[in-house]
């Protein structure tokens, strides 16, 4: 009898310990989930089409949105070209060999011409935007790595300080065009929004377009107007705006997925120049 009771006691202890072990495993689970999330994020970083680009594509469902994005890309390339040319001039003055850097700048100039020549109304404009942006990022990275091989951190810092505020007529014109196009885009969005709200305040629109009211102030005014409405109307307007935003996101996401699919096919089918890969829709 004594033996049986000892076995029973041992069994009880084992059960108690095993339940504690289960609880311990449960504590470890969240860590495992974190590890998985970290891996996924790491993978996303290496993806060609990152989250920023997907966000930028969202407004490219119309010609004006496409024009804005291509102008912005043009501006970013001009800015880097100016800085690169200035750096090459400085290095030449110090008797450095700048052949590699000049070759990269030459490629960047060709890229700028390609970006300027894009027909923003064409079907494959989104695909071209992603492609050219990717090329611009790669060339910038190549330049950065090449210049790092020539100069140490301190000298690079000095050059960076010297050409911090780079401006040129081309860059200034590009900035002006972007501002005007963004104003046009926002005006269109305002009209669409007032269409949803059901009442238009043309004074706000005019003041914004004349530059007497900032976009931030305008948005506050619109939010106030919506928040003053009754609960049902507010919910209805909120839903319609949200629907509009979700549609944009879905459109951008489907474009990205199409591009990824075509990229997979392209590896097998074409010679890498990418011609003929449209939006797919």
């Amino acid at each position, binding site marked *: 009898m004594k033996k049986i*009771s000892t076995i029973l006691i041992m069994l009880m202890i084992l059960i108690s310990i095993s339940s504690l072990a289960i609880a311990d495993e449960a504590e470890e689970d969240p860590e495992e989930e974190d590890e998985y999330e970290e891996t996924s994020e790491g993978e996303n970083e290496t993806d060609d089409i990152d989250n920023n680009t997907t966000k930028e594509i969202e407004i490219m469902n119309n010609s004006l949105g496409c024009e804005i994005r291509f102008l912005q890309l043009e501006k970013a390339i001009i800015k880097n070209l100016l*800085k690169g040319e200035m750096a090459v001039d400085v290095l030449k003055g110090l008797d450095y060999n700048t052949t590699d850097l000049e070759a990269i700048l030459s490629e960047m100039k060709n890229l700028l011409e390609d970006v300027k020549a894009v027909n923003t109304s064409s079907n494959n404009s989104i695909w071209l935007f992603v492609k050219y942006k990717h090329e611009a990022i790669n060339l910038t990275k190549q330049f950065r790595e090449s210049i790092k091989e020539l100069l140490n951190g301190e000298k690079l810092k000095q050059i960076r300080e010297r050409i911090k505020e780079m401006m040129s007529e081309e860059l200034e014109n590009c900035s002006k065009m972007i501002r005007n196009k963004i104003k046009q885009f926002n005006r269109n969005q305002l009209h669409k929004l007032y269409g949803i709200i059901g009442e238009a305040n043309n004074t706000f629109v005019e003041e914004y377009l004349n530059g007497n009211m900032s976009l931030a102030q305008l948005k506050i005014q619109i939010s106030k107007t919506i928040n003053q409405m009754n609960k049902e109307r507010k919910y209805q307007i909120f839903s319609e705006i949200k629907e509009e935003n979700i549609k944009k996101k879905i459109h951008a996401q489907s474009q990205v997925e199409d591009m990824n699919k075509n990229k997979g096919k392209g590896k097998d089918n074409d010679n890498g120049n990418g011609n003929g890969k449209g939006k797919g829709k």
Partner: protein
Amino acid sequence: MNKKIISIIFLLIIVISLTLVYTYYNNFVSEESHYDSPIKTIDENNVSEEIDELFIEEDNEIEIGEMF
């Protein structure tokens, strides 16, 4: 008598352990469902966030990285 007491004590240990494990798992599930809960009331911030997404800031730029 002794045997009975011992049995009761160990039964108690099992019950407590099971209760602890059950509570732990339940907490876990309720925390997850808390994050998934949809917006039921719309506040001013929800409206502002959606309005923000409709417009583009005039100083918005595309980042392709720095040259050096």
